[in-house]
């Protein structure tokens, strides 16, 4: 039988083991984790692991163009003779970059607004902030993001900007719900009575309780951001040629269906597998932290 005080010291490692047990109990989540690791690795070391790193940039070789999958080019070549496999590997970089940028930009803003609105629940601050959020939520965010991207010059950066502009609202909603439910808990009230000012309460008392939810949503959002990003670049609003981008590759290739099917189909599967990996990972994290709000 365990001695009681030893348990306190072992609690942290116990929590990690417990978390891993829950996570690994679901084979889907483990698969997701593996897929994500492989993709991140491929993206990071793309120049070293791909057969034709030069094909990721401006490269033209019409002699080798339009080749179906073969031993020389495992996934075939596109219209300009570039190796599809290599371009997909490099395209991962930009997809991940887009997703990370969106999250890095939108999460602090969204969480911040949500915390403030939640803590000042019922006051004018809450009302104004949530009305503004409602306005952004009145329309499917993709539409708004599209509108903005179209107006600006299409580029990866602008796509990231436009998407961030609508992405923060989801975090605000989420955190607002958590923060306003904690608002009246005793530990907050006692902090107030003790004289703590609102920055301390909001950031040192409420925020830590939201962290696992936010973190899980972030990993689910990686998948969503890649999905939405590929939709934007499908329309030509993302990274511009010759930068390889999964959505653009599908768009370009779909004109040549069904003959040169590999130009569109492999990037399409790449999108699917990437988003799937992040979704599985995110779901596993959600089960691990047992979060219901997501």
């Amino acid at each position, binding site marked *: 039988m365990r001695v009681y005080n030893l348990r306190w010291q072992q609690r942290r490692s116990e929590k990690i083991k417990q978390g891993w047990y829950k996570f690994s109990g679901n084979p889907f989540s483990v698969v997701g984790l593996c897929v994500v690791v492989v993709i991140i690795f491929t993206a990071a070391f793309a120049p070293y692991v791909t057969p034709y790193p030069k094909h990721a940039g401006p490269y033209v070789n019409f002699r080798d163009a339009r080749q179906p999958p073969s031993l020389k080019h495992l996934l075939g070549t596109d219209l300009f003779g570039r190796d599809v496999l290599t371009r997909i590997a490099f395209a991962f970089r930009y997809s991940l970059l887009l997703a990370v940028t969106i999250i890095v930009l939108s999460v602090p803003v969204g969480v911040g607004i949500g915390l403030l609105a939640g803590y000042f629940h019922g006051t004018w601050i809450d009302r104004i902030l949530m009305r503004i959020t409602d*306005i952004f939520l009145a*329309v*499917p965010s993709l539409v708004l993001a599209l*509108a903005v991207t179209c*107006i600006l010059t299409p580029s990866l950066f602008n796509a990231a900007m436009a998407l961030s502009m609508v992405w923060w609202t989801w975090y605000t909603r989420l955190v607002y719900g958590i923060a306003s439910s904690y608002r009246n808990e005793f530990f907050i009230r006692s902090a107030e009575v003790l004289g703590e000012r609102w920055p301390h309460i909001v950031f040192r008392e409420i925020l830590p309780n939201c962290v696992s939810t936010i973190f899980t949503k972030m990993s689910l959002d990686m998948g969503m951001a890649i999905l939405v990003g590929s939709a934007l670049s499908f329309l030509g609003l993302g990274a511009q040629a010759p930068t390889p981008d999964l959505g653009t590759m599908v768009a370009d290739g779909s004109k040549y269906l069904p003959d040169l099917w590999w130009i569109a189909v492999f990037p399409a599967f790449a999108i*699917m597998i990437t988003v799937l990996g992040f979704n599985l990972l995110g779901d596993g994290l959600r089960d691990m932290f047992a979060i219901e709000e997501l």
Partner: protein
Amino acid sequence: MSMFVFLGKRIALSIFALFGLSLLIFLIARVLPGDPVRMAVGPRAPEWVAENIREQMHLDKPVLVQYYYWVRGALRGDFGYSLYSRRAVSTDLKNFLPATGELAIFTSLIIAGIGIPLGVLAGRYSNSWIDNLVRIFCYISASTPSFVFATLFLLLFSYVLHWFPIVGRISLGVPRPPVVTGMITLDGLISGNFTAFWNTLWHMVLPAVSLALPGMAQVARITRSSIQDNLGKDYIAFERGFGIPDRLIMSKFLLKPSLIPPVSILGLEMAVTIGIAFLVELIFNWPGFSRYGINAMLQKDLNAMSAVVMVIGVIFVIANIFVDVAIAFLDPKIRLGAGRRA
């Protein structure tokens, strides 16, 4: 009584949000860089032509004045003049909205009609092969953008298998019914022209399914977890204890409370569907409103773009209100207000 108050408040808030949205999109359209007039007339048109157009569109006046003109027109149904189609935007809307409307309705029916039963099956038979199959299906559907599905389906079912037509709303040679709503399916039903009805439906299958899959996955997932949660609840055990047969419990007593979460996200799902409809419309060449909207945005057609965003906003609001009514129907707490008797 409280339900009317509830609805009234929702509508008021939505109208406020829509106004805010209109201002937002208007400002975005006018304030960000690029000269739409110059882009519309082309670089070689003389400056006086561009000036003329600018004056007609009030683009020379301050932004808030422009907004005022726009709102005044919009409330009368006049969204201005499209620089590209050379027609009033409202005419364009009338032409293209029904096509997308048909598609959206069909897609929503698929999302609810297939997504919810799948979720119920998966929840009921948790951890069996049915459940695993449904979960795999949901994961894949939720992770793949609609345009990928559209591309693959087009390739497989149209080009290779020839099961479905490749493009268009209706095959050539099939007589179109007289226009009542603009939706060929409904018009066909109204006028008794069933050939047109089935034909259009056949054309809609691939685009609707590609569009519906991500939404279906979300709905199935939420239904599944809702059923699982409620299966473990005490009231199910209590009801079982009376010998109430399983099929009655599943079809009535478990189903009704479990439907609340999926129905409440149906509004959101419909919004997302409307938002991504263009992906599918582009691939299938569906002459719809979303495709029109995308083209408007790509060509920086300000009037058309603002109109499109506003129409989507209104549709979204209406869809949400319908969903709220449906939830009130399912959940008595909302219908009657959470007042206690004793």
